[in-house]
């Protein structure tokens, strides 16, 4: 170490200068006193320079005695930082969900909680930074401290003593922080963010083909739906964070609305989380804006859905059954055959969510029938449905309280306890630096 040889030379210089002052022919007491002090300083700093490697080894020796180690400490810090990051992300995602859902009062609370967690995270990061500096640079800090300590006329003695004390005390003290922390707190758990689930799936007809732009309504106990969402052109839909906060294990009754008709979905009751297909068992979607609804007890032996025609072979098992055709007004039906005979069907029109829909129903008595419908399909636009989202308020208030309590405990465990410990370490460093002849106050002889 070049610094050490320089420090050794400086201590020798200090000693010689002290001898010169001491033996000088000036009969002033202060000069003599300075001389003695400098000789003493030269010897003290020579001792420090010589014990450099001893001081380094001493740190490891004490750590071994106290059963603490730096890798364990770094792992402890990393674990805590991970806990905080996971919690922070969880809070952010819940806050985003609340913001999108429009629950602004709760968002304010989440802001407060997230600031608590962010403060704790900053504190942990600061400790991490200090630890990294101490761990990786402690030999250099010690060498520079000794070098400053040896500068003649006590110019860097206070700073040098402080650096020496810091490198020793922090190196031994920081890995003991987990033991200190565990004596005062139980390790807090991360904030769980898997309390909410989603319902996702696709809406299909009796044959399993997707139904485009169908509306899914979910009910709880009341007659009004708590959730209304529109499926996409492939029949897919999603109900969950961030727009909806559905508590796990909650149950909803599902209903599908398509072209103005409400259909019972299969399954009828959905439990969060859920993913799958919502099937409408009494409807076929022929494509291009035409669907066939079956009312009554009917056995369908074959269905042939071609690009511009539908052929149905069916047997009516009850005394009467009805087949309904639903189409958009823009879809043109050319003709309908039952067997080989063309029939006329009266189309009634109505509007549904901004779409013009037409319907016609044909009744059948018991027997076998073959029905053929030829049509010119059209593009299916999105209905103008006002979506409705759901936040489980009762559950979320309790959950937010839990989060807040946890966040306050984070603040205690990750900010107050480590800060207190760092203050203790700093006080110890100050005491040691005073013992080495430093101290914050500049000593004047």
């Amino acid at each position, binding site marked *: 170490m070049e610094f050490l040889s320089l420090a050794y*030379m400086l201590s*020798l210089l200090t000693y*010689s200068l002290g001898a*010169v002052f*001491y*033996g000088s*022919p000036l009969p002033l007491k202060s000069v003599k006193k300075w001389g003695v002090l400098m000789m003493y300083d030269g010897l003290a700093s020579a001792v420090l320079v*010589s014990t450099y490697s001893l001081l380094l080894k001493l740190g490891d020796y004490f750590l071994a005695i106290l059963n603490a180690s730096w890798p364990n400490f770094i792992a402890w810090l990393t674990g805590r930082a991970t806990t905080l990051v996971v919690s922070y992300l969880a809070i952010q995602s819940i806050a985003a969900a609340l913001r999108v859902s429009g629950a602004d009062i709760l968002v304010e609370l989440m802001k407060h909680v997230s600031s608590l967690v962010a403060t704790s995270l900053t504190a942990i990061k600061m400790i991490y930074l200090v630890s990294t500096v101490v761990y990786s640079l402690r030999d250099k800090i010690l060498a520079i401290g000794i070098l400053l300590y040896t500068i003649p006329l006590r110019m860097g003695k206070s700073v040098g003593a402080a650096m020496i004390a810091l490198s020793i005390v922090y190196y031994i003290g920081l890995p003991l922080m987990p033991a200190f922390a565990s004596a005062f707190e139980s390790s807090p758990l991360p904030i769980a963010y898997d309390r909410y689930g989603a319902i996702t799936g696709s809406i299909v007809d009796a044959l399993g083909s997707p139904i485009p732009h169908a509306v899914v309504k979910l009910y709880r106990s009341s007659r009004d739906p708590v959730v209304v969402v529109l499926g996409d052109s492939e029949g897919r839909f999603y109900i969950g964070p961030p727009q909806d906060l559905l508590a796990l294990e909650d149950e909803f009754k599902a209903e599908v609305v398509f072209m103005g008709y409400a259909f019972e979905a299969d399954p009828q009751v959905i439990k969060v989380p859920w993913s799958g297909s919502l099937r409408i068992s009494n409807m076929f979607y022929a494509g291009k804006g035409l669907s066939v609804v079956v009312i009554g007890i009917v056995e369908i032996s074959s269905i042939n859905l071609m690009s511009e025609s539908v052929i149905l072979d069916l047997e009516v098992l009850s005394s009467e059954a009805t087949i309904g055709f639903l189409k958009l007004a823009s879809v043109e039906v050319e003709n309908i055959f039952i067997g080989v005979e063309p029939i006329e069907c009266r189309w009634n029109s109505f509007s549904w969510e901004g779409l013009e829909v037409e319907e016609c129903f044909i009744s059948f008595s018991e027997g076998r029938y073959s029905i053929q419908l030829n049509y010119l399909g059209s593009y299916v636009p999105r209905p103008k449905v006002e979506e409705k989202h759901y936040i489980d308020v009762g559950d979320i208030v309790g959950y937010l309280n839990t989060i807040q309590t946890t966040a306050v405990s984070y603040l205690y465990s990750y900010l107050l306890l480590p800060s207190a410990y760092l203050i203790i370490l700093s006080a110890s460093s100050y005491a040691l630096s005073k013992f080495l002849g430093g101290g914050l106050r500049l000593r004047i002889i």
Partner: protein
Amino acid sequence: MGAVLNLAEFVRQVTVAVMSVAWFVFLVSWAVGWALRGSPIPFRNLKRTGQSLIEDSVLAAFWLALGTTIFALISYIASSISLPMPPPPTP
């Protein structure tokens, strides 16, 4: 790090210069001390100052002469402490 070594060399040269100056200073101090002590001025304080000058110069010369030895001793003791302890003797 080369600069640090150069600095160390410079400090070494300064130390050598200071040491050689020190011997002259001690000699002057010793001479002044005796001059004051043996002067025909009948002031007790003056005599005492002379006496202390002689004592200080002799002591300072002594410590300076021992200086390198003391430093070497310190290095030796410190390095022998840093060595691993010898194993306990076996009967």
